[in-house]
């Protein structure tokens, strides 16, 4: 703990009955950084955020926000935090201005200051023309931008955003990133954002912690994380599912120690002399009469990091969950 840290989590643990949702997290978020908590659905991101906000009592461990003990002096700490939650956190039946005024009052900002804030923040969110329009009529992107600036009404030191771009299209997502970056730079606000989008963490965050099954499994800048899985580029070999273990073994035998197979893919760090190694690999595969569907080489991504550490692709995890959502939605329609 130091004067440099905005949030410090120490051995933070949360059990719901027998299920451990957050499993002993140690994390130090520095003042002024944009910090990303990256992980698939159910990893424990929201539970962590909600503990920081005092919405959920930790089973054990400690939380410090701006040097304030959040377990015992919650109210005091809350004043330093602005929140944008996973749910769309605007008041649909209030206007954009009323939304900001309400939260200004709840955070005990003086009335004349609130008036200034309304114009300033709506301008920041590019919503000045919608000042007196009901927030419920806004598009998804506008609602999120309003939620973000509303969280700034009391000039917090930190804003927490729990999957703020969930369900937004790419354009609006990029716009929100720009807004967050702008806020971080011009207002000296520490940003803690959770996400399951690799690109988001990659593009936006100064540092990233990858969380899975309630544990931080990797921590660092995007490039540090990518380098952590080995030097050089990554190759992906796709083939029939049954052949994957076989291919993985052959690759390991020829010296590609990092080879790891999942689904219908094997990935490995290729290291130095990539073309030479690829040719060699293709020769071996041909000799063993193994037919592959394709081979590609790319710079390492965060997904490669995740894959390497967990054995599953995060894209798969995200895709599976959204497929489930779609299936569920279909199911509900089916019943009606």
């Amino acid at each position, binding site marked *: 703990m130091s004067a440099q840290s905005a949030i410090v989590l120490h051995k933070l643990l949360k059990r719901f009955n027998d299920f451990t949702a957050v499993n002993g997290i140690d994390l130090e978020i520095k003042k002024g950084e944009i910090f990303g908590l990256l992980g698939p659905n159910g990893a424990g991101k929201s539970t962590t955020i*909600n503990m920081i*906000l*005092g*919405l959920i009592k930790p089973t054990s461990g400690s939380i410090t926000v701006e040097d304030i003990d959040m377990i015992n002096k919650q*109210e*005091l700490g*809350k*004043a330093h*935090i602005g*929140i944008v*939650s*996973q*749910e*769309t*956190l605007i*008041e*649909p*039946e*209030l206007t954009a201005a*009323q939304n900001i005024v*309400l*939260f200004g*009052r*709840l*955070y*005990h900002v003086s009335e004349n200051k609130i008036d200034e804030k309304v114009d300033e923040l709506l301008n920041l969110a590019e919503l000045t023309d919608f000042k007196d329009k*009901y927030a419920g009529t806004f598009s998804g992107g506008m609602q999120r931008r309003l939620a973000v600036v509303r969280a700034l009404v009391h000039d917090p030191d930190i804003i927490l955003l729990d999957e703020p771009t969930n369900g937004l299209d790419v354009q609006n997502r990029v716009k929100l990133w720009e807004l967050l970056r702008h806020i971080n730079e011009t207002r000296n606000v520490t940003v803690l954002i959770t996400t399951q989008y690799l690109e988001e963490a990659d593009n936006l965050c100064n540092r990233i912690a990858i969380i899975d099954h309630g544990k931080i499994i990797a921590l660092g800048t995007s490039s540090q994380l990518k380098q952590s899985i080995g030097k050089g580029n990554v190759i992906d070999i796709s083939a029939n599912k049954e052949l994957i273990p076989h291919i993985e073994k052959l690759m390991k035998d020829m010296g590609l120690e990092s080879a790891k197979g999942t689904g219908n893919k094997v990935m490995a760090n290729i290291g130095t002399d990539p073309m030479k190694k690829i040719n060699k690999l293709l020769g071996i595969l041909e000799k063993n009469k193994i037919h592959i569907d394709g081979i590609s080489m790319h710079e390492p991504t965060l997904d490669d990091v995740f894959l390497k550490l967990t054995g599953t692709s995060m894209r798969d995890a995200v895709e599976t969950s959204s497929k489930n959502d779609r299936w569920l939605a279909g199911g509900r329609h089916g019943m009606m």
Partner: protein
Amino acid sequence: MSTLRDAYSLYIRELLILKKNFRSSIARSMIFPIVLILFLGNLGSSPRNTPVAIVNLAGNANAVQFMNLLESGTSGVNIVSITTQDSAMKLLANGDVLAVVVIPPNFGSSINSNVNVYIDSSSPIGSQSVEAQIQSVISSFNAHGSIQQIRGNSLSINYAFGASSSYKSFLIAGIVIMVAAFGSFYSGGMTLITDRQLGNLKAFFSAPISRTSILLSKVAYSVTQSFVNAMVALVVGLVLGGTIASGVAGLPYIIWYVLISATGFGGIATALASRVGKIEVYSIIGMAITMPLWFLSGAFLPTSTLPPIMYQVSVYNPMTYATGALRDVMLKGYLPLSTFVVTSAILIMFSIVTILISVILFKNADYK
């Protein structure tokens, strides 16, 4: 102090939303009283030719004039027997008459001549209006009447029905209080649940304010919405033929009983909403609480007509006191000070207790 300030900030939010939906809210709150008064208001019409026995202890000209007046005009009372007190009471017990009126000696000449009236409280309909009718004739003689409810067997009486404003007024008092109680369930309590579902509650819980302030804002909103609904019900009732015997002077009392009932039920509604996550479950439990309380509050029939066990329950029902007091104002035109003090004390206690319970439950409630 800051709890109250935060509660006020949140209450403003509720008012803004209420204002936004005001027209539709008014329209919706008209349906319930209109339907009830149209259906039940005529179902419960007061009897014409109500059989009444007279015990004439005066035997003077005033007594004769009194009896003529009782039988004439709109009062609809039919004197079937003039006899001794004993036989009159027997007639009442057998259900041959619905009321016994005892005219005191020196009736009309002495200031303290008190007319004793015995009313068959078992009458499923109309005993209230008979009471009102007799009362009005007594008043016109500048005499006092003391009314006593006696359980007889009125089911054996056959009489014709005619519309009367007094049953409507009787019913409206019950409806106004019911709307005040119901309004709490469908405003503060209900929106506590939707706010939780929409994530608004999470935002409030994340702010540096106490949970008590959030809860108090919901109770205040309940009271506001209930007040609006109850006033709509009252106006609907008056338009459809009800009357307030005390006139405008009774209005502050009506408002007071509406507000204090809504506060108590606002406490119950928010307590329930603190612990129930699903709207459907909440609605069913809310119904299961309010409906029986309503039926046992004497909203349709005097509680004295209830079977003994239910009558006992009605004694512990706060709604009974609010309805009873409102009925005194609307039907009799006066509210004894003692009744006002006692009923107010009961309802204030009821409100304090329910809100305390609600605050405690809400302190440990989940944010989602």
